[in-house]
């Protein structure tokens, strides 16, 4: 991020949280704009053209979901939502409305910065890799081939598609509904059990220890995320 200063808009009503987010983000070399409610946030988003919006879901003046919907009417800017732990439903609703990722309060700096990097990188244009590696696994998108420890891994079409969707969003959470819709089709959005079984099989085929996966992570109550740790490629 240091190569080019990213503009981050923080929409959060609590002053203390805004203050520490500002300090942390500026430490990362970002330029930070603040808004303390949705109305102000939408104005700031229009005038500052941020590269990332951090949005607290519990704002006093309006529903955060509405804010996301309004913003999504005219911009694809990544949105990172902040929310309390007990509100999984709200998080899923926000993610399905168009938010890109979430953090659960109270969150650690390391998590915040990791999410930030993923979202800012993903926003960088013209970057479609033909091949992705993680651990000992290599995925060749052009030839639809998957290798592990140098050996070819047989995946069913659905397994491959599931892996491809997760990898296309790597580092970012993908909700259960989004996965079911993209891999199985719109009529399967309520059939979460398919996802459990196929994720289980993918882990058997790609992870060293399927019960304690390193890459194919479960975000309980929300969805899944493929995380590729730095320096793991």
């Amino acid at each position: 991020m240091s190569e080019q200063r990213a503009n981050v808009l923080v929409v959060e009503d609590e002053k203390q949280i805004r203050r520490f987010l500002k300090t942390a983000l500026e430490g990362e070399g970002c330029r930070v704009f603040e808004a303390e409610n949705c109305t102000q946030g939408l104005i700031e988003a229009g005038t500052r053209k941020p590269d990332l919006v951090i949005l607290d879901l519990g704002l006093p003046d309006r529903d955060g979901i509405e804010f996301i919907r309004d913003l999504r009417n005219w911009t694809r800017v990544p949105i990172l939502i902040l929310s309390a732990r007990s509100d999984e439903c709200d998080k899923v609703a926000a993610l399905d409305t168009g938010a890109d990722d979430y953090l659960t309060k109270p969150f650690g700096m390391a998590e915040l910065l990791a999410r930030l990097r993923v979202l800012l990188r993903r926003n960088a244009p013209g970057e479609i890799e033909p091949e992705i590696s993680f651990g000992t696994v290599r995925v060749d998108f052009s030839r639809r081939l998957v290798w592990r420890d140098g050996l070819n891994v047989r995946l069913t079409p659905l397994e491959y598609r599931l892996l491809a969707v997760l990898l296309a969003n790597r580092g970012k959470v993908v909700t259960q509904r989004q996965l079911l819709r993209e891999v199985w089709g719109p009529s399967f959005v309520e059939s979460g059990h398919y996802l459990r079984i196929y994720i289980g099989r993918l882990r058997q085929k790609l992870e060293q220890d399927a019960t304690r996966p390193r890459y194919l992570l479960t975000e309980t109550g929300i969805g899944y995320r493929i995380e590729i740790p730095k320096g793991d490629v």
Partner: protein
Amino acid sequence: MRPSSTLLRYAISFAVCFLTAVLALPLRGWLDTANVAMLFLLAVLLVARYLGSGPAVLSAFVCVGLFDYFFVLPYLSLTVEDAQYFVTFAVMLVTALTTGALTANLRREIDTACAREQRSRALYGMARDLAGAVAVEQVVEITRRFLGEAIAADATLLLPDASEKLHPFPADGSLRAETHLAYMAIKNEKPVECTQISGSGYALSYFPLRAPTRTRGVLAIAPFQGDLEVIREQRDLIETAASLVAIGLERLHYVEAAQRAELSASAERLRSSLLSALSHDLRTPLTALRGTAETLALTLGDSPHELAEALRDQAAHLSHMVGNLLDMARFQAGKVVLRKEWQALDEVIGSSLKLLESALSGRKIDISLPPTLTLIEFDAILIERVFCNLIENSTKYTPPETTIEISAVLIQGMVEIQVRDHGQGFAAGRENEVFTLFGRGATESSVPGFGLGLAICRAIVEAHDGWITAGNHPQGGAVITFALPMGTPPEVTEETDENMVAAT
């Protein structure tokens, strides 16, 4: 116009006959005897109309006698010169008796209709009052007033409480009730009467208050004066009144139930808004504290760096405990709604271990699950909490080099999951105290925590229709076992194997 005493009515009818005779006497020379007979018939008709059938019969005979004595030759004698007058007497008597009977019948019917109308009016008035009643006391008052006015009887209502025990309303009423007779009336679903206790201040008749959904109590009555006859005569009326009272009570019952539901719903709303406000207010400073500490830790030099790290760890710990407290509060408030889905047990164990990654710091965990384990329906977030709390407890109370074992077995439609450690185990005899709020396995402990974790686990597992127990393993170490029902997982349509990606 309606003399009440029977004797008086006969006396008046007698007088009417004589009055007619006195009035007709001066006209004796002018009027034809047939017309005088007509005057007497008129008198009988009037008597029948106003005094009833008995006096009419009497007056018929008296009139015939007077007619003979004063108006038929020879005067002032009951003897008759002309034998054809016997025909006149006979016709006169028959006509008088018949018209008298007819008129009296008509009158009786009018009287009955009037009484019926009055009764309907009274019942209607009572129904209207009952519809407006908002408390049981009002219903009692309305019932007593109605029965007092309509049949001159005293009444007491016997109403059941939550445990079906009957209580008299009004509690200090002048009329006492025999509770066992009331129970009998409820049980038989028909009125019960008792003659032995007449005049002793006890109710004589017990009418069950039958409403559409259930019997709502008993109406016990006794006439102010007299005996059961008064009640028997008015039985229809009393039964109608009893069913009106029953419907009134039932309506009150449902109004109360609706009000209670409304009240508890608003209390619930208040509680949940308090909880989320509390949750927000507690988490905000913690988030700021933790974030600030971390920022400091990242930017400062070595010595202040350590301090900042300590600050961060304490903030993280505090926020964990606040999380537990809030969770327990939500459970106690009954606010937790299960979002059950078909889940893979190994996946939830995996995600719990991932969440605890830093707390576990490389500790060895053994997981052994049966290969036949299917998907299980549960709320993944909550069961993840159970695993987190159990594994975290094990790491807190056991030396870091020991293993934590997680295993599952399938027994009789349940999956039994064990989390076992190799520490000191629970203090003997205190195994089940650990699940109570603020209960901890050891009395004094240097390990931080409130003892909320296991109480939360129990609340979660029991919400899933499962059970949880604590104990010590024969070879040492604490064992927590919890079970969840297995259920039948939904079908999954398999792909055909042919179009495998990258088939080799």
